[in-house]
């Protein structure tokens, strides 16, 4: 493999990984607070891509307006799902919550199939993303440069929200101890709704950038990116946003470079990621950055 090809693959892996990171944030924040694997998160990613598709491709809104609008609407979908399907089960066994999440995931996918149809739709990609860029002597698609940069901007914004704002402090408090936070007079349900909003907005951003990279969208597009992002969250240490970012980039690089070096294995790339997931659950369930969970009897 020449150096140029290697750089191309590296950037490709980096852009894929930063997308996984964006989606992984939503998994990890919800898990950190509710101990719930939000099965529907990958489908929220899909919803975000479709909202953007309709705003830009059908209503011809400019991107500077469509992007924030999409994030806002998708955040609303996330909050709605939490309000309707998850909040009534807060005090129930976690398995009930998980089953409901599986139901929500299937509902979103099938609503998508019914309303927008199973056919692939071509996503409107802005010119900036499509034009090639030269970097270090290698020619790469604009997406491979812009996607990691935009993702990084979102991730920095998120870190600022989590560690520098009052709402972020409330989120960290809830993930530490729900009851104690409630006793301090915080509105826990509102904080959880806010968490869902942020996670869903980032998933929407991921969905849009994903569709720049792979401009064919369909209602089942969220399933595999969702699972890989979840793997990223586990690898990074579930519950830890910084870990999710690192895990996302790692998974993206591993996936792309494996296929680049061993092209015959490309059919197995999904199995590969799930094997990483199972291995991590076994050998290091707390991930790279996670804190060990204490078991209460």
């Amino acid at each position, binding site marked *: 493999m020449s150096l140029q090809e290697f750089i191309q693959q590296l950037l490709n892996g980096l852009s894929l990984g930063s997308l996984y990171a964006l989606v992984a944030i939503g998994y990890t924040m919800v898990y950190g607070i509710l*101990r*719930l*694997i939000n099965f529907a998160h990958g489908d929220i990613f899909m919803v975000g891509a479709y909202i953007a598709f309709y705003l830009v491709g059908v209503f011809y809104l400019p991107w500077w307006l469509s992007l924030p609008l999409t994030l806002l609407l998708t955040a609303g979908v996330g909050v709605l799902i939490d309000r309707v*399907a998850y909040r*009534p*089960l807060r005090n*129930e*066994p*976690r*398995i*009930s919550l*998980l*089953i*409901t999440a*599986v*139901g*929500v995931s*299937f*509902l979103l996918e*099938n*609503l998508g*199939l*019914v309303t927008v149809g*199973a056919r692939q739709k071509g996503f409107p990609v802005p010119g900036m993303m499509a034009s090639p860029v030269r970097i270090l002597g290698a020619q790469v698609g604009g997406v491979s440069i812009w996607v990691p940069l935009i993702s990084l901007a979102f991730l920095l914004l998120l870190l600022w929200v989590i560690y520098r704002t009052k709402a972020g402090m409330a989120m960290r408090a809830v993930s530490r101890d729900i009851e104690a936070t409630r006793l301090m007079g915080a509105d826990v349900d509102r904080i959880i709704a806010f968490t869902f909003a942020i996670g869903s907005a980032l998933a929407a951003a991921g969905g849009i950038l994903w569709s720049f990279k792979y401009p064919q969208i369909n209602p089942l597009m969220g399933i595999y990116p969702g*699972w890989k992002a*979840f793997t990223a969250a*586990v690898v990074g240490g579930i519950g830890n946003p910084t870990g999710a970012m690192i895990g996302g980039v790692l998974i993206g690089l591993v996936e792309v470079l494996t296929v680049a070096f061993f092209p015959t294995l490309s*059919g*197995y790339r*999904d*199995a590969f990621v*799930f*094997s990483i*997931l*199972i291995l991590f*659950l*076994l050998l290091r*369930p707390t991930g790279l950055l996670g804190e060990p969970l204490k078991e209460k*009897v």
Partner: protein
Amino acid sequence: MKSIYKTGLTLAGLALLFLLIGWANGHLNEYYSRVLNTAAIYIVAAVSYNLINGVAGQFSLGPNGFMAIGAYVTTLLILPVSQKQAVWFLQPLVWPLRAYSLPLWLFPVALLAGGAAAALGAFLIGIPALRLRGDYLAIATFGFGEIIFVLANNIIPLTNGPLGIKGIPNLPYLLWVTWGCAVLTVLAVTSLVNSSFGRALKAIREDEVAAEAMGVALFRHKMLALVVSGFFGGIAGGLLAFLVSTISPSAFTFFMTFTLLIIIVLGGLGSTTGAVVTAVIYTVLQELLRVVESPLDLGPVHIPGISGMRMVVISALLIAVMLFYRRGLFGGREFSWDWLWQKWTKRKGTSWNQTAASRS
């Protein structure tokens, strides 16, 4: 009620069921036979899935993997050699399977081999996965199902990849086979649940730490439950292969697990009775819901049919059940002749087996 009466009643019930099947075998058209067969296969799959999920409380999401293993092994053993040559036209099938097949009358051997292979798969995934708890176990078993799916798609010399395998021979008297398997599964799982092994499983479900403190070997019990569940799941997969006569990886996606999950949740997690009843209800419901997908004419208003609407209704149903009716139809209770007897004589009080008064 004396236990000899109960045995008699059970036998009478079985005889009645077999009479019905005998009648159905000659009198029903292909569509109704298919619905009945599907119901029986769902019973096998759901009752075995309920053993690990409902009775032992270990939330597995991998039954689609077990069913896939069972279906592929059964098919590879029973598919005639000439058909094998026709199906694997891109790459030949691996050697011993290419040259030999079991005659059709040895189908029980093929089904058992499918079950055994699935049980082996369950054992292998159980070694790592059963060390995990709760949702981590769910994720690990889900990953297993997905890995099986990817393997089935890619190991072309064994599975023929995404094209699948077609031309699986029809079994005569398929209704007898499927319902026979359903009855055997229910009997086997019920006797397991009512043994000391089953009580240990329920103890694990209610409180793992307490069960361990009482001397229940956690890992061994969970493993046995998973292996038994995998075995019958494999049988269900093999039966499905005979019923639809074509298998491909896409028949065993997570969607299959989702279907089984709905069945056992609607029936009441932990209740074998519930799994049986809702397996039948679900099969019938799936057919009835074809209405929502067919075009509708309301005088001047014409609503075109939307395919996929059924799944929207079914997923919404699952969420609604979880939100408003979490106990499901049977809520962990089981059918028993005593209960029927008391209903019959209209005595006060209930003697339902309260197996799951409080579940966490």
